[in-house]
């Protein structure tokens, strides 16, 4: 495998030891993308079915670039880069959105659910806060949205929020006792609108795995190898999903 010659010793070890749990600590400019790319190419050339590999990247662009490179390496080797197309690759959000599009109905959504970007979410919240007759200087849509986002990233739903008295106390003391009511109304509104916000893509993915063991089983069976780029920037929800 010619491409291995381009690697230094540390990179070589990180590329070729692909079995078992591995952590690669990569300094800036140390060829991280190259290692991740070659590791996947190496796995495929050692007979691992690309269908079984899931790679979670930081941007869609880097994922596209990596996929191209991997396909090229595999094509040089077997004259068939087509296999590598079965790789499942993308950002956390886009990968989960793709999976959820086929499973949305299990969760009560249409498969054509809408994804709300930050602007959309804030606009929905703004309307809820106005409907509640609350002061939007105190209940700023942006900060309410951040707090909801944080809760979701820690897998705390509107339904489960009351189980965290310390959070309720923070809301009370921060002068925003109505936070939970807003969170509930927002959750309801999104659901009625057939929409998931960015954080729902993680939360609903987690819900799918927890509520439907057969789905978990299928995905575990499919994704035998999971690679995560920029692991230091993953949140609790992302880690809990991947751990499954």
């Amino acid at each position, binding site marked *: 495998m010619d491409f291995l010659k381009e690697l*230094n010793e*540390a*990179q070589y070890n*990180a590329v070729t*030891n692909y079995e*078992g*749990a*591995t*952590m*690669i*600590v*990569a*300094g*800036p*400019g*140390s*060829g*991280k993308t190259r*290692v*991740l790319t070659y590791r996947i190419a190496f796995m495929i050339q050692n007979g691992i079915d690309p269908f079984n590999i899931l790679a979670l990247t930081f*941007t*869609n*662009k*880097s994922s596209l670039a990596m*996929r191209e490179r991997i396909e090229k390496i595999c094509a040089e080797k077997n004259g068939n880069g087509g296999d590598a*197309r079965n790789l499942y690759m993308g*950002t956390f*959000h*886009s990968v989960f*959105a793709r999976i959820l*599009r*086929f499973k949305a109905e299990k969760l009560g959504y249409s498969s*054509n*659910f*809408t*994804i*709300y*970007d930050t602007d*959309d979410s804030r*606009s*929905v919240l703004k309307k809820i806060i106005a409907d509640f007759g609350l002061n939007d200087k105190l209940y700023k849509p942006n900060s309410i949205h951040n707090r909801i*986002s*944080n809760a979701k*990233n*820690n897998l705390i739903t509107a339904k489960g929020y009351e189980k965290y008295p310390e959070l309720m106390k923070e809301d009370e003391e921060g002068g925003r006792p109505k936070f939970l009511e807003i969170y509930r109304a927002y959750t309801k509104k999104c659901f*009625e*609108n*057939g*929409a998931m916000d960015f954080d729902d893509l993680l939360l609903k993915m987690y819900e799918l795995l927890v509520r439907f063991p057969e789905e978990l089983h299928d995905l575990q069976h499919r994704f035998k190898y999971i690679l*995560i780029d*920029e*692991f*230091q*920037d*993953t*949140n*609790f*929800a*992302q880690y809990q999903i991947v*751990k499954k």
Partner: protein
Amino acid sequence: MGDDAQSIYSFRGATIQNILNFQNDYPDLRTFKLEQNYRSTKHIVSAANKIIASNTAQLKKEIWTDNVEGEKITILKTVSDSDEGKQIAHRIYDLKAQKQVSNNDIAILYRTNAQSRSFEEQLRKLNIPYIIYGGLSFYQRKEVKDLVAYLKLTLNPFEEESLRRIINYPGRGIGDTSLNRAFLAAKESDKRLWEILENIGSVDGLQQRAKDAIGEFVVMMKTFMAMAKEKNAYDLAVHIAKTTGILRELYNDKSVEGISRYENIQQLLNGIKEFTEEDVVEENEEGNIDRSLGAYLQNITLLTDTDKNDERADSVKMMSIHAAKGLEFKYVFVVGLEEGLFPSTMSLYDREGLEEERRLFYVAVTRAEIEVVISYALSRYKFGTLNYCEASRFIDELPQEVLNYIGKDTGNNVDVDFDDHVKSSFGGWNKSALRNPQNTQQRKPSPASMENFVADDYNKMEEGMKVLHQLFGNGTIKKIEGSGDKKMATIQFQEGDKRLMLKFAKLKIES
């Protein structure tokens, strides 16, 4: 795969704890460290290591490089935010003129997006093209959002945000009063707005005219929905843009803004066309490639900041450090290194916050391959009032031996630095040697002799002249093209021919 030293997203809920948990959850975990840096010069790498050493380390790691030592890191002191913009824009101009650096290789990185303004103004003055990342992106423009709202609604009519956005755009006589009536009806019967609109005939208190208008709107949307099942995303989008009248409305607006809005819609349609034809792998359950409208909408909604912009344009890149993550540039300007800005005020009171800011600084500096310039301003407008600022603690934490201060100790300083004094008089002594043409001609001057270099008026330059350049030494002008301040000269130096823009080349006429 990751780097704890580059963890900068705690505000999004990212947690270094995950790395530690990973070690606990998988006791058989094997760890590999990639420490050789291929990107940056030795000076940049040593600065990076020193920066991160001030944090409490989680995973021990020190980067090193075989690359050249490189230029020192410039610390640029400026008097105000606008002066900072000006000085950096001029440095960029000089880089381009003297080192033939292309715009794409240059980035200005800042802590907050609001800082971009002064750089924008100054770059525009010098006609240097730039792109701002993370500003109002293409998909956030009104006209684009309008058409996208139609597309979203076609797939999911229950989505109220989109529905409210376009039910009366372009205007079709559905006023606020009628709409509020429909909202109320939805609330009273605990139904969704779309369901009410579908049966608008049975809603009380609406004028027949409004009912007709709503009825027509519903019929139109339903034809779109039917079409979505048969046509591809592009054909559907074109059909919607025409049928709804969006295209006509924008086409008829011949103001500058109107034309650009029309172009944006065209660009959006082109993007959809590309998507339907492109060889992207977006497989569905059966392994087929999914080019449906749904897949398209999902794609554009989930674009990350750095995905959204056009790489092809040759422009200076301006972005927040957060957006620069994972990118690299030959020349990097890290600006606004002031206490209260970077590190930000909010982080000053707890160690964790401060450490995250420091990691951010680490990320900024390590984006650069060749040169880093770090700047700060002594005063800055914040919310309309002028504030005085002091240099960031992060500058003091850098290894002083790799720094080159510019603008320090200017003005009426009471404090005299003898080192500086000795150096400048040394330069003065050498300058007189330089003035004597017999001594210097045909020799590449030593750096010391350049300290008091004074360039001659570029209008006096002619083909065939012998000139002296600060960096390249002696040379002969072979050719001059263009006129006025756009004059480009091809000059033969010892190390080869260079094309320089005369206005900024800073040449001294030798003979």
